[in-house]
């Protein structure tokens, strides 16, 4: 079975400091992994996805994620937080052998302090 665990429900950083949002996955085979962002009262937007072409994945708005098979992790990072990054972030795994069903983590709310 596929699943993801987001290790922090809330993360608070100061503007201009690095962001780290942690995600661990469980998968019987090579996973398909995604990060989505949801700003208040908005739908979900794709930040980035793991394509297996490279372990370091670059996304929109300066975000990156590194796939580490040995640690079963797919942590999201950004070198310098901006106020506009304040949102909720979801780590997602899809099950290729089950109609590409998507399984969501419980979400991490990122707060950015001025």
């Amino acid at each position, binding site marked *: 079975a596929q699943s993801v665990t987001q290790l922090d*429900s809330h993360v608070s950083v100061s503007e201009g400091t690095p962001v780290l949002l942690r995600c661990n996955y469980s998968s019987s085979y090579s996973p398909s992994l995604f990060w989505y962002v949801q700003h208040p009262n908005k*739908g*979900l937007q794709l930040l980035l*996805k793991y394509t297996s072409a490279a372990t370091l994945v670059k996304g929109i708005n300066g975000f990156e994620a590194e796939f580490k098979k040995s640690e079963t992790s797919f942590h999201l990072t950004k070198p310098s937080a901006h106020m506009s990054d304040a949102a909720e972030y979801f780590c997602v795994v899809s099950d290729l052998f089950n*109609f*590409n069903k998507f399984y969501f983590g419980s979400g991490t709310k990122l707060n950015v302090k001025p």
Partner: protein
Amino acid sequence: DVKVTQSSRYLVKRTGEKVFLECVQDMDHENMFWYRQDPGLGLRLIYFSYDVKMKEKGDIPEGYSVSREKKERFSLILESASTNQTSMYLCASSSQGASNTEAFFGQGTRLTVV
């Protein structure tokens, strides 16, 4: 621009009413999904459909049903609305087959049952 459109952003319904939430996608996707989103619980899959007239239960199907008569339209039905169904409902669609194909989301419907 690809789109998943949910018919209502906000709905207020009375306990016991039959409620229809409609979702339309314009990407010719095979898969369509209904999730509910509650604070601290992330997104939980209610039902999904992998083809016209085909459906599968998700993790929390109780109290809900779905209908997919046309490829582009997926409806969620609350047969007799209850207050514990007050939530944000999100529709999504995706294509099948290829790995790393992402889901596209609608803006969500915030349903309040009074």
